[in-house]
């Protein structure tokens, strides 16, 4: 339980990353014109990408040095970070990984 004083201190500064709720998608003018109430689709659950950017947790694993080297080479060849490469591989296993997950939070912080 955070004390009132610490809570006030925390609220007085921005988060380190942009992990807050993103604004809801606004329909384009054309879409707004064409969508009459009787035609409106039922409300859908917001997707992970549209609603919330999750916090990230560390994942450290030991792998053979030769595989680590191949990963580094592959990342360099494709001009991607190791993180992006590994997340793409995880997505290929059928695990839900969005483009926003791969893009990551870097560069989206509020200063």
């Amino acid at each position, binding site marked *: 339980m*955070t*004390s009132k*004083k*610490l809570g006030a*201190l*925390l609220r007085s*500064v*921005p*988060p*380190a*990353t942009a*992990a807050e709720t993103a604004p809801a998608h606004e329909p384009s003018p054309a879409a707004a014109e064409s969508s009459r109430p009787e035609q409106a689709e039922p409300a859908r659950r917001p997707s992970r990408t549209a609603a919330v950017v999750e*916090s*990230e*947790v*560390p994942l*450290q694993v*030991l*792998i053979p*040095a030769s595989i*680590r080297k191949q990963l580094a080479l592959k990342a360099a060849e494709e001009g991607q970070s190791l993180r992006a490469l590994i997340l793409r591989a995880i997505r290929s296993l059928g695990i839900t990984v969005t483009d926003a997950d791969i893009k990551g*939070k*870097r560069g989206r*912080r509020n*200063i």
Partner: protein
Amino acid sequence: MFGVITLATSKGGAGKSTLARALGAHWFALGHRPALVDADPQGSLANRYDAAGRLGALPVIAEPEERVGDVIDELRSRHAPVIVDTAGFRNRTTIAALVETDLALIPLKPAVEDVDAAIATYDLIQEINQTEERAGRPIKIVMVLTMTMRGTVIARHVRSQLESAGYPLLAAEMPNRVAYPEAGIEGLSPTTVDPDGAAARDIAALAQEIMKSEIHQIMAAKEVA
């Protein structure tokens, strides 16, 4: 149950990450069990961590969110010291880390912008010390001059101004040396690459001065346990 050192200042480029890695490498070389927490979204430490490298056994945990406090809490049962690198701007993650901290190190270059940021960070930590969470156990604070050029007037002037104003400042400094960026290419530190070199000696002097403070007793007690 303690042993957490957080490097904090709201000014970027003051040497937080470099000093965090250098201190971690120094204590690791001495046989301690330090861990690094990268609480900066830029990920300067985490991005250069190489599990197969010479500092592979010095863990680097990336946690730029407010839950960094939980991460620190978990790590300090197995590691001492836990060294936390923070972002170069005021943010909630840094405050969350400081709440869990025994010793706050405020690095600053001998420049007016760094001095302003260091004083602002000092004031912020004093505010944290007034919270219920830190009642009766204030965070110890020390400033440290980084990237100094030996014999320059500005470094002497900044030191004398801070000391005369009553701010705690380590006598040891981290002078500007090319050994840091060179070693940093591979996520290493001068202590690892050239343990007898001048930069490694600078870090040893800094670490020794830090160890003289109460953190020394904390770390020693943990290792006995």
